[in-house]
């Protein structure tokens, strides 16, 4: 795409992604006094402080856990690498309200583990509980892009470093880490935004963040709730701009086909495997075990009821993932290859949109479509609008990983291809796209998994009668039909594992 065409495309994307922010601005403009009163009250400021504290701590912990796991899986001979590659991303698919509820039931005093072996040690309330649960559910945001990056890291630099006499640790710090920086930052930012926008976990674990005030007041004091939502959006915009400045322009290179250098762990192999199992145990096995217990305990489950929702879930999630990729790719190109205001603006609204409460995104799209001229108005509560809403809400996850992918395409190859007379289209299809594929797929995988568990947008914007597994889980939980909820949740996890393997891992592995 030529630069002006690229700019025009990106401008269109920016306008679409600005819809929720514009809605919050319009609704708050009606009562500007409320906005000021909300942001200046001590109560709101304390809640903002708690959100930022939780977001920062969870982001830091997830950055460490996600990067360490990715390194162990790609660069060591830890046993069971193929299995870890499927299991490690999966906690991402567990909705936080399910994860929190199951972890309380599993680990709290008198919980399943306590009854089974008399152990209850994990914190399951307040800051500690929220920190633990959200870290265990979000580290895959870092794991996936870092793993993709590690697999495309050229071994030549490291080999040179070692030949020059640097030890493993120094090589890692000086050569590997700078090459991973972009991917780690990308994932960490997503974890931060996820955490400050989470409601399910903080509500059940009793930690009073900004989102709790937004939800608690949404009916009682709607202007306050809208003001606080705007505050959350503004915080996200500031953080995204900050990260953009901090990201820097480290030179990264991608290669493909080469097997990554593998560190032989020797006797430590099983110790590392044990460490890898920790996040999987807390983020996946414990919730799954609790769900299985409830599902088995219940009687008369009708699994046939879940087939339709499972197919719908897979279809809308794949659609959202693919559309996200197509939509964010121009933004990734513009922001990585050119300096452009439009690009910066698009980057900010796309990424910050992830931090808005799903309810605000849904209501914004109601606001913009219900009174709109045709044919937009007739899109109301149809699947195209639903997929659009998912893309607006989760596009950030595709964009940040796409930026990492585009940044990893070496300029030298592009020049070589040009020298050989390849046209723009051909260069892109034959040279750039294949190199960027793993990271792009990782991004699509993130959108896919998030969409599969999405709730508020689906409940309000899906066509009437359109059910996903997540809505099935939620509707059943709400009225304490735990066996039913658990069966649907388990199917959701299994389906996510299957789709992750089919669409991401298998294709990534293809030469």
């Amino acid at each position, binding site marked *: 795409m030529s630069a002006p065409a690229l700019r025009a495309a990106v401008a269109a994307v920016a306008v679409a992604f600005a819809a929720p922010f514009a809605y919050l601005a319009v609704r708050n403009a009606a009562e500007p006094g409320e906005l000021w009163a909300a942001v200046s009250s001590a*109560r709101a400021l304390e*809640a903002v402080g708690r959100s930022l504290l939780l977001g920062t701590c969870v982001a830091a912990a997830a950055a460490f856990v996600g990067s360490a796991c990715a390194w162990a899986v790609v660069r060591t001979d830890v046993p069971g690498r193929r299995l870890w590659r499927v299991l490690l991303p999966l906690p991402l698919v567990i909705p936080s309200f399910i994860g929190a*509820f199951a972890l*309380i*039931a599993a680990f*709290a*005093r*008198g*919980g399943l583990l306590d009854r089974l072996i008399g152990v209850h040690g994990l914190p399951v309330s307040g800051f500690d509980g929220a920190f633990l649960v959200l870290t265990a559910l979000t580290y895959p945001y870092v794991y996936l892009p870092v793993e993709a990056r590690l697999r495309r890291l050229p071994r030549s630099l490291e080999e040179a470093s070692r030949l020059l006499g640097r030890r493993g640790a120094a090589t890692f710090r000086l050569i590997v880490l700078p090459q991973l920086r972009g991917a780690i930052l990308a994932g960490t930012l997503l974890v931060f935004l996820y955490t400050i926008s989470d409601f399910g976990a903080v*509500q*059940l674990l*009793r930690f*009073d963040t900004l989102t*709790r*005030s937004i939800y*608690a007041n*949404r*009916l*009682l*004091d*709607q202007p306050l709730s809208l003001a606080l939502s705007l505050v959350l959006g503004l915080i996200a915009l500031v953080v995204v701009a900050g990260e953009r400045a901090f990201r820097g322009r480290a030179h990264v290179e991608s290669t493909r086909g080469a097997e990554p250098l593998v560190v032989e762990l020797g006797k430590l192999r099983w110790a590392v495997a044990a460490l890898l199992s920790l996040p999987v145990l807390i983020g996946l096995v414990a919730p799954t075990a609790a769900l299985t217990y*409830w599902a088995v*305990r*219940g009687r008369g489950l009708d699994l046939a009821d879940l087939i339709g929702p499972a*197919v*719908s879930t897979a*279809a*809308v999630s*794949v*659609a959202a993932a693919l559309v996200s990729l197509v939509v964010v790719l121009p933004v990734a190109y513009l922001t990585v290859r050119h300096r452009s205001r439009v690009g910066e603006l698009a980057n900010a609204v796309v990424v910050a949109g992830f931090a808005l409460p799903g*309810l605000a995104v849904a*209501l914004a799209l*109601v*606001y913009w479509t*219900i*009174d709109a001229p045709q044919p937009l108005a*007739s899109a*109301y*509560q*149809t*699947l*195209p609008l*639903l997929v659009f809403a998912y893309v607006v809400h989760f596009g950030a996850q595709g964009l940040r990983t796409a930026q990492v992918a585009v940044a990893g395409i070496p300029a030298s190859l592009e020049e070589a291809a040009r020298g050989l007379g390849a046209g723009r289209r051909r260069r892109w299809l034959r040279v750039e796209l294949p190199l960027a594929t793993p990271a792009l797929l990782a991004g699509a995988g993130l959108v896919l998994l998030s969409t599969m568990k999405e709730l*508020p947008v689906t*409940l*309000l914007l*899906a*066509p*009437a*009668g359109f059910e996903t597994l997540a*809505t099935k889980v939620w*509707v*059943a*939980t*709400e*009225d*304490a*039909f*735990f066996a039913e909820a658990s069966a649907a949740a388990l199917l959701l996890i299994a389906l996510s594992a299957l789709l992750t393997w*089919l669409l991401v891992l298998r294709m990534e592995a293809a030469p």
Partner: protein
Amino acid sequence: MTRQVTLRVLILGVFAGVLSTGCGGDRDALTIYSGRSENLIGPLLEQFAEETDIAIDVRYGDSTDLALLLAEEGERTPADVFLSQSPGTVGFLAERDLLAPLGEETLEAVPSQFESADGLWVGVSARRRVLVYNSDDVSPDELPRSVFELTAAEYRGRVGVAPSNASFQDFVSVMRQAEGDERTAAWLRGLAENDAQIYANNNAIVEAVSRGEIPFGLVNHYYNERFLDEDPDLPSRNHVFPDGDVGSIPLVTTVSVLAGSGRSEEARRFVEFLLTPEAQRFYSEETFEYPLAPGVEPAARLEPLAEDVELGYDIERLGAELESTARLIADSGLEE
């Protein structure tokens, strides 16, 4: 390679199938926004559709979120009927003139204390406020006779409440009407000072009580009945405060017709159907809620509501009082 192609064709096929079914629901169908979950209304919807040949589109969701959706949609809403889990959300819509009055005949099916005075909504079923307790830790003769006893020293740190939950807020609104603002405020402060434990919702409280984390919790009766249905060995039990104590008043779930409905005739037929003895029996036979139509008894394991139960409060005002109730709760220190 061929396997990959087959897979892709399969995925595309599924896509096309789902997309074609999902583009625009049946525009002629009666559209229901239901804050009541499928388990508590689905079979009735099917029965109605079958008996009347009226097609139904239903959107399940949280009553509060659906109320916000209806407010955002305004006149253009595709919805005809709103089913709510609590009167509070209905009050929010009534204030915005989004509800249409129901006919006299409809309202007569239910005792008048279970409907709004201007006929904007009518009760379908009821849930009762109770004290859920752990029968391993507490013997039945130790149980309090009034909700007001829970501020005493012996309950310090032992009672769970969900102050941000709609059912607790509705309950506090009722208490204000029955006992006055002063006594209610004092009770809420007493709970806060007595180190009442805060939970997210009814489910979380019953789960904590059944696990032995706390011995008591203030909830709607319905949830523990469901927990026991899933696992009869749980030690959690419901205690109804005796002698018409305000701690065990019933709260109703409601149905209303929207002002923007283009199918108000069908909508009214649906409301009438919900109140027939036949539909009401669903609540006594299949769920653990209280039916409201006269002559239909609740499930045998529930303590029946007193004959001609005197509510002692004006249900209508619950919605209007929601905001001041929330302020009262916040000022007590129970909720941030």
